[in-house]
């Protein structure tokens, strides 16, 4: 059924169609509307046979989810930013225990400085925790990925994060096609736990493991993700057969035929990237794009196939490995091991900085002329940075950096966008 609704509401309805049995909620912007949506559906009786639990922290949210999942319930929660960091210990634990929890990340920057707007720093900080991470390009894909995520998680007994850009997707009203319950039921079978706390067949879960077996247990977690590399495209294809539209998969290529320059990106920015590519293609530039949906497991082989004939790759990242540059770029370089081509990392959209068509057009033009630095910060205000560097070198007690920059910028509204 076609509906014009907020992205968060679309996800809430998708989650409800997956018949979750326990949902844990703790508020953090921009994730709030999602759990509010499912909470309302539980309270008004639309979503039956489901416990909606208001907890006291994100750490508790995922901990309750761990207990519920281990006791055999299909379990869901959602968070963002600081919330994901606050639950970090439980994020690793849920994956280590192999519990198929599905969690939405409304992607948001991490402080300090505190910032509620979108980038990918939060989920990327948990990239090695053992969760599968799927990034949505659109609200339709966010909706679809949740349905795939439960099936994927339960098939592998591995938790899955569905990452969607905070505000840009979570708060955007867009047309989405909401499937019928019978369609979802046909795709997603009831949860059959691989392990369960059951007095009739007692097991200990979460035992201490020493050096004699730790490596093997960790290898099994890695192996699970390697299996996901095969399973994700299969489930995406099965989804297309069931619902009549393509969503998910490891990655997608856009106009990469004969492309000398290929842009790699994740999430909602790919829409803007494609528009700029269309414009440059019309002007005769051989440029294309690859959007990564599955960031964990990282699709090394598929990415290599998609990129190996290019002359240069521009990785557009909404995150920053401080002191190194890009996070996604590292994976891309690994995928291209042994292949000679030019690689550029572009840090863009941090803390909600708008990534405009004009900026991207300039950026990609510079890239095709190989006039980019190895690591570029898109639309960095060099004047502000230089002034602050001078100010800090002039006085020992120069005070807090962020506040000094804000003071210099003055009223902020005129600088956004």
């Amino acid at each position, binding site marked *: 059924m076609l509906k014009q609704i907020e992205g968060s509401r679309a996800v809430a309805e998708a989650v409800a169609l997956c018949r979750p049995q326990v949902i844990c909620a703790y508020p953090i912007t921009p994730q709030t509307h999602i759990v509010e949506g499912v909470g309302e559906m539980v309270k008004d009786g639309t979503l039956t046979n489901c416990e909606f639990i208001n907890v006291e922290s994100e750490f508790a949210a995922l901990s*309750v989810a761990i*207990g519920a999942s281990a006791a*055999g319930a299909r*379990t869901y929660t959602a968070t963002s930013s600081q919330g994901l960091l606050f639950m970090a*210990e439980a994020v690793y*634990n849920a994956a280590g225990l192999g519990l198929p929890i599905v969690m939405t990340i409304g992607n948001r920057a991490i402080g300090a400085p505190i910032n509620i707007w979108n980038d990918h720093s939060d989920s990327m900080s948990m990239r090695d925790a053992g969760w599968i991470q799927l990034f949505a390009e659109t609200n339709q894909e966010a909706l679809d990925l949740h349905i795939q995520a439960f099936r994927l998680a339960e098939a592998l007994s591995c938790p899955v994060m569905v990452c969607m850009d905070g505000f840009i997707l979570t708060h955007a009203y867009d047309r989405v096609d909401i499937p019928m319950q019978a369609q979802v039921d046909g795709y997603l079978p009831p949860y059959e736990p691989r392990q369960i*706390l059951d*007095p009739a067949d007692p097991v200990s879960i979460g035992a201490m493991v020493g050096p004699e077996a730790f490596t093997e247990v960790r290898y099994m977690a890695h192996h699970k993700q390697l299996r996901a590399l095969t399973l994700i495209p299969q489930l995406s294809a099965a989804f297309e057969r069931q619902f009549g539209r393509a969503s998910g998969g490891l990655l997608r290529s856009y106009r990469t035929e004969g492309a000398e320059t290929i842009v790699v990106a994740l999430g909602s920015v790919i829409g803007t990237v494609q528009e700029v590519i269309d414009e440059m293609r019309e002007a005769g530039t051989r440029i294309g794009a690859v959007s990564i949906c599955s960031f964990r497991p990282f699709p090394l082989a598929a990415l290599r196939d998609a990129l190996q004939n290019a002359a240069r790759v521009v990785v557009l990242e909404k995150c920053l490995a401080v002191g190194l540059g890009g996070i996604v770029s590292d994976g891309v370089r690994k995928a291209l091991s042994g292949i000679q081509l030019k690689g550029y990392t572009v840090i863009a959209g941090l803390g909600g900085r708008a990534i405009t068509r004009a900026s991207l057009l300039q950026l990609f033009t510079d890239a095709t002329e190989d006039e980019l630095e190895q690591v570029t910060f898109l639309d960095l205000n060099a004047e502000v940075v230089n002034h602050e560097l001078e100010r800090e070198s002039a006085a020992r007690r120069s005070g807090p950096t962020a506040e000094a920059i804000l003071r210099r910028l003055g009223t902020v509204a005129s600088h956004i966008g």
Partner: protein
Amino acid sequence: MTETGEHMATEMQEVKFYQTGTFTVGNRLLAEDERSVQANMQRTNSLNSGHRACQGCGEALGARYAIDAAMRATGNQLIAVIATGCLEVFTTPYPESSWQIPSIHSLFGNAAAVASGVAAALRVTGNSATRVVAQGGDGGTTDIGFGCLSGMFERNDDVLYICYDNEAYMNTGVQRSSATPPAARTATTMAVGKEPGNVFGTGKNMPLIAMAHNIPYVATASVANLRDLEFKVTKAMGIHGARYIQIHVPCPLGWGSLPADTIKLARLAVESGLFPLFEAEHGELSGSTKIRSKVPVEDYLRPQKRFAHLFGKEPDTARLARIQAAADRNIARFNLLPQ
């Protein structure tokens, strides 16, 4: 009836004999249905022998007593959640797991929340017969697990949380927790300086904090009083909603006491008034176990090396008096002496 025997106002069978010097009623002198769970050959041994606890471990005893009693109360339909700590370390390593019932260990600070999740899953899957018990040490309860525990209380989730209180972080090498008593030596409250050991005027009383959540049931218990402990666990399992029991469990390693003295020290803690045994329902104190033979706090403190600095060449009378005052305050506050 002996003079001390009159102090025990029991409404059950009139008890005529106690084991010499212990005030423990011999099971054989009681009717079958009044005997302890531990006395029953059919007890579940939920926490089996062969685990890796130290000799004289109060926590191992407390956990076995409590879980066996909870098993009997639930018809063996029980799931255990364990916080990181001694209990987890000495019971879970495979292939020697001592847990004969389904159990999960997740993290140090989230046992109460994991148990909430288990309870929610049981409810939503229509499994009303199976119940859940969460367990942690005092560090996992009063410090790092405090937030999750308070949340579980506040939501009145159907969980019995048991804190095995040995008054410090024993698993990591005897560091201070917020349950460490004043003057006690730990690795982080060293027995040096002008006032050796833990400072006075700090720490938190978790049973009282639990009561402030107005949950259906709160109790304290001791491994020295098996029947009282089993009674409270059984009572707790007969109630739905959030329940809290704190069991005092001496730790020979951390306390510097003889393994053979574990029960004796636990009893002295009770009889001195330092560890009051009481129950509370819906936030109100509903009863306390009377002290049968009051002893000065010195009797409890002196056998423990963690308090040795109080009994040097010149006894630290000032600080001993402060500890005695705390015990006397407990006695008055919880009505621990027979009127």
